[in-house]
């Protein structure tokens, strides 16, 4: 049973010749065929290309030139442009869009020899926390198909949780990797802003978007980040900084590690069951020799309002290119230019995308810019300074990834603010550009709970080390929902 194995374990099986990439790929394609009809975690399955890539990977393995990721099947969130394969971004707008080029992340994964099984479902243009805004229908949580998987990388999280793929890529603008990872019981890492190239990743909010790996374990995420990270001259905001081997520090012991617990993250908004799981995880770290320090991130309450000015402002501009002129959806028989714009955009964007475009347009408008956008930027700086100050005394910050476990499909769709609050603990990390990871830490009412760990800029190695050590002494990350064992 290959699907229960971690990526690191599969890598060993491939190298030792116990299984071929083609066999692995077939096995996962088979699982997708059998199990995804209900989950809806994939938008596109690329069977033929996958088998061709697997065959090529097997040749490389035979030739003895394989890397650790050669031949490993995985999936891309449908936000990454893939040449000759539909890239929908979860939207009717791009239902007909075939990209003529590969995103940098896609190139890098291909160069590493990985085998793409397909493209995963997501909230439309990554705007959502439940995967309910997708044009391709909601994704279901493998732990309870009445519940959401979280979002926006809901398809990636659900497919990994259901073991339809060993790993997937995700993107995280306000928690879109960590929150669904938490709700689906998998490990998801959002790297430092600028660590992974954004070229070819369809932009939602450019100053916040960051791609990262989603997998069963921290070790798997480390292996994937090794392939994903790095400076890209095509992305001016990517950072010119050497990429370390992220697996190198995994086994460092945590004796003396200083863990900060922000008191604001354990406030009244936090579900009691989630709080209990997080407390236990903290206790576990204490047992491993870590020192627990209570800290304060006093501007935490500003994160959601600031985010919902900055992100919509950027998205209102980023999504202007979808105008029905050059690619994507175009309304039928436009009368004139204005009609072309209005109906193409009106008919192809969903409600949440429209809501954010409206909010963002408003925030940038003459007379409101200073009060909203400019003010939000000032507050963003204050939120960032909170973290800088905290990292003067602690090595990592821990807390819940989300205030609750997965909620029911439809439960929050009519109340956007309550939906937005499900990212309350993750959003500040994006505003500050820091790396964060969510790891499975237990269950509350039979639904997974994620522990979020935050580190200082470019300290992904430390983050992965801290997560990996926990996973060496616990089995939460190895839990599989009954229906998918």
């Amino acid at each position: 049973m290959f699907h229960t194995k971690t990526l690191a374990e599969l890598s060993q099986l491939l190298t030792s010749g116990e299984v071929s990439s083609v066999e692995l790929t077939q096995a996962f394609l088979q699982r997708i065929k059998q199990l995804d009809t209900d989950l809806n975690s994939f938008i596109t399955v690329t069977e033929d290309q996958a088998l061709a890539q697997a065959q090529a990977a097997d040749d490389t393995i035979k030739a003895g030139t394989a890397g650790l990721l050669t031949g490993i099947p995985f999936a891309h969130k449908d936000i990454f442009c893939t040449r000759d394969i539909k890239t929908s971004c979860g939207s009717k707008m791009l239902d007909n869009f075939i990209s003529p080029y590969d995103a940098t992340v896609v190139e890098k994964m291909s160069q590493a020899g990985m085998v793409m099984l397909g493209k995963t479902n997501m909230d439309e243009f990554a705007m959502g926390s439940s995967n309910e805004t997708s044009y391709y229908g909601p994704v279901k949580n493998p732990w309870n198909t009445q519940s959401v998987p979280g979002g926006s990388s809901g398809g990636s999280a659900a497919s990994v949780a259901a073991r339809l793929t060993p790993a997937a890529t995700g993107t995280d603008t306000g928690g879109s990797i960590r929150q669904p990872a938490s709700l689906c019981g998998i490990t998801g890492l959002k790297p430092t802003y600028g660590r992974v190239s954004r070229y070819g990743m369809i932009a939602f909010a450019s100053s916040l978007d960051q791609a990262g790996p989603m997998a069963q374990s921290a070790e798997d995420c480390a292996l994937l980040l090794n392939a994903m990270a790095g400076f890209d001259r095509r992305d001016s905001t990517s950072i010119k900084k050497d990429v370390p081997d992220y697996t190198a520090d995994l086994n460092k012991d945590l004796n003396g590690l200083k863990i900060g617990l922000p008191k604001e993250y354990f406030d009244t908004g936090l579900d009691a069951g989630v709080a209990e799981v997080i407390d236990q995880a903290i206790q576990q770290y204490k047992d491993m020799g870590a020192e627990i320090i209570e800290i304060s991130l006093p501007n935490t309450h500003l994160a959601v309002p600031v985010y919902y000015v900055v992100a919509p402002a950027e998205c209102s501009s980023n999504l202007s290119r979808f105008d029905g002129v050059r690619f994507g959806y175009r309304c039928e028989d436009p009368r004139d230019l204005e009609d072309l714009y209005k109906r193409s955009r009106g008919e192809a964007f969903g409600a949440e995308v429209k809501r954010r475009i409206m909010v963002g347009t408003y925030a940038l408008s003459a007379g409101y810019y200073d009060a909203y956008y400019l003010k939000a930027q000032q507050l963003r700086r204050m939120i960032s300074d909170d973290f800088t100050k905290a990292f003067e005394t602690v090595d990592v910050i821990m807390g819940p990834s989300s205030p609750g476990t997965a909620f029911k499909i439809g439960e929050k769709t009519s109340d956007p603010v309550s939906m937005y609050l499900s990212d309350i603990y993750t959003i500040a990390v994006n505003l500050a550009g820091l790396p964060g990871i969510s790891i499975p830490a237990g269950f509350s009412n039979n639904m997974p709970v994620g522990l979020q760990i935050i580190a200082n800029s470019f300290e992904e190695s430390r983050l992965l080390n801290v997560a990996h050590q926990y996973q060496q002494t616990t089995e939460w990350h190895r839990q599989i929902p009954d229906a998918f064992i």
Partner: protein
Amino acid sequence: MEWESVIGLEIHAQLATKSKIFSSASTAYGAEPNTQACAVDLGLPGVLPVVNKEAIHMAAKFGLATGSNVSRHSVFARKNYFYPDLPKGYQISQFELPIVEKGEMEIELEDGSTKIIGITRAHLEEDAGKSLHEDFHGMTGIDLNRAGTPLLEIVSEPDIRSAKEAVAYMKKLHSLVQYLEICDGNMAEGSFRCDANVSVRLKGQEELGTRAEIKNINSFRFVERAINFEIDRQIDLLESGGEVIQETRLYDADKDETRSMRSKEEANDYRYFPDPDLLPVIIDEAYLEDVRKTLPELPKEKRERFISEYSLTDYDAVILTGSRDLADYFESVVQQSSGDAKLAANWVIGDLSARLNKEDISIDQSPVTADMLASMLKRINDKTISGKIAKDVFNAMWSGEGDADTVIENKGLKQITDNSAIEAMIDEIIASNPQQVEQYRAGKDKVFGFFVGQVMKASQGKANPAQVNEILKQKLSS
């Protein structure tokens, strides 16, 4: 009522970079539609801009050359509006923090005095594509070759008071950007174009009148006409009790008028904000020092040097330094001929410029190269030909009959400098015109010209004029 017009210009100079401002596609003009538009220029999903360092360098050069403040920290901003030839739905420009601020240009006015025109700012931005409305059967074609071409938008202070001053300022800038080699100045291809903000107010009034903006004027002549039309229109309007409304107007060269394009109410709210895909442009002292080293001699310095080094008049120096190509041509002629700068200046400003104007070609297209003109001037100096004959030689060279020596040889234009030959001709003429000799000797000096003419005629213009004068005087008075 006496009115005063107040004018400010916004000039778009297309920077002469090889590739676009945010992509690696070529900027060459005139390619087949959409063959020079890459994924970034098309605004495909997921693409990102990367700034062209050469464009930054050129903007910095302009800043230094105009005594401006080159910002240590400037920021690209998005100007949001929908238009089919604007692929991303926003133009990347600069807004609150432009790369160049607070400079100035000195212009010469018609009465010979000079005036300083302030430069408010100059900022970098990308050009849009082109919408093509013909040949598409009621539809519109989009050509994105021009999308992403780097522009430097140079905004003047409202210091200009007449259409003539506006043209003088624009010409001055046009010359400067070519001096700096940051723009080819080709106005027909749109490499250098202008928007004019025009308002009028009563003389003595402090407060500015309501302005109209005239868009996209692409020649000096049209700038002058458009502004004059607009000034008259506004004055007529105000004098008949009307009101100028703030609006954007287009100049129609065929009808020689401006007409309304959109009013202030219809204007877009561009919702500028810093482009999160691009980092701020940071410029330090060391970088500026390097840029300074690449600055060529500027028109004003060159003019002063021409006056001192070549003893030219102020007038000649101004004309010769009007464009870098003309100045270079002149200096090349001086260096290659025997250094007679005054002679060279006369030829370049006189016959050569006249001919270039007549044929409407630029100096780099002149069939008479600097080398050719220089070797002709040498023949004047060594008296092989006279200045008068030189005009024939010049014309022959222009029509492609070879260099000066070839023309002189083939046409037998060599000057006669042999004293005895000239004496013989003069003797004969004196002998056959006794009446005129009488008149001259009776004190009628004017008749001298008649004799000179006769000698030149007899020699087919080839006799050395100085010698002719001297020998004639001698013979007639003896």
